């Protein structure tokens, strides 16, 4: 039985990506422009206002998702103003992604054992299934299951 579980585990990360995801207290655009100057690549930015028309004015221009790709490295980030990140914590989370819903749900559940789920893993307004959690070792994870 133990062997069988190990065998499944070896396959569990196939076709799943694990990337660092950065959070900023309102200066995400400035920071990502800086990283683009260092690493090159193309920067794609979506603001909260573009994605959610009912978003409060104060948040409209904040970055919901920024993606720097095609240069030396792939970097993703967003703004999370007003959170405790202004104290210098939680700058980096780990983002797991893919479209194998069953596998990613299993990983989400396993990582949350003994930890604390923030956003429940369910369908979000951008069309994907998403959830996040802080594991029992205080590492923060995000899981995004792409819509097929």
């Amino acid at each position, binding site marked *: 039985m133990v062997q069988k579980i190990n065998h499944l*585990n*070896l396959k569990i990360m196939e076709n799943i990506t*694990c990337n660092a995801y950065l959070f900023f207290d309102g200066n995400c655009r400035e920071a990502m422009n800086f990283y683009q100057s*260092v690493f090159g690549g193309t920067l794609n930015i979506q603001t909260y206002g573009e994605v959610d028309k009912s978003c409060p004015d104060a948040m409209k221009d904040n970055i919901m998702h920024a993606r720097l790709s095609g240069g030396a490295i792939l970097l993703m980030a967003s703004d999370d103003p007003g959170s*405790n990140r202004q104290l210098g914590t939680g700058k980096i989370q780990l983002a797991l992604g893919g479209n194998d819903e069953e596998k990613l749900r299993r990983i989400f559940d396993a*990582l949350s054992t003994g930890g604390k789920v923030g956003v429940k893993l369910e369908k979000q307004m951008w069309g994907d299934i998403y959830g996040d959690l802080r594991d029992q*070792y205080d590492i923060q994870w995000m899981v995004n299951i792409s819509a097929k």
Partner: protein
Amino acid sequence: MKVVNPYLNFPGNTEEAFNFYKSVFGGEFSMITRMKDAQGMPVPEGQEEKIMHIALPLNSGQVLMASDNCNAETFKTGNNAYLSIHADSVEEGKKLYDALSAGGKAAHPFEKQFWGSWHGNLTDKFGVNWMVNYDESRQ
């Protein structure tokens, strides 16, 4: 594109945390070194068995890595992560290190380390922690 690897710090329970991640992601550790294995580095008493470096390769192509940081003054829960990148040459490593640390805080200069490869770490002007590495044996 270069692979960016997450590098985590734990306040002394790295080994326990990584056994947990291994149970979640599968795979085998590609490296475990303990503080007592570090040649020429003074190790505080009681920390000999703590983890200096542990690596769990993920099938995604990335490697999840970590070490223990038992210094309560520098360890901050929620900010215990670095982005680790490998340069293709010493020159490129220096360039990346200098560019990223502009306006930030160069914690540990990019230079040859006792374990044989080049390493430097820094906090950039936005508060993000980076490690820059160059390893001849990878070329």
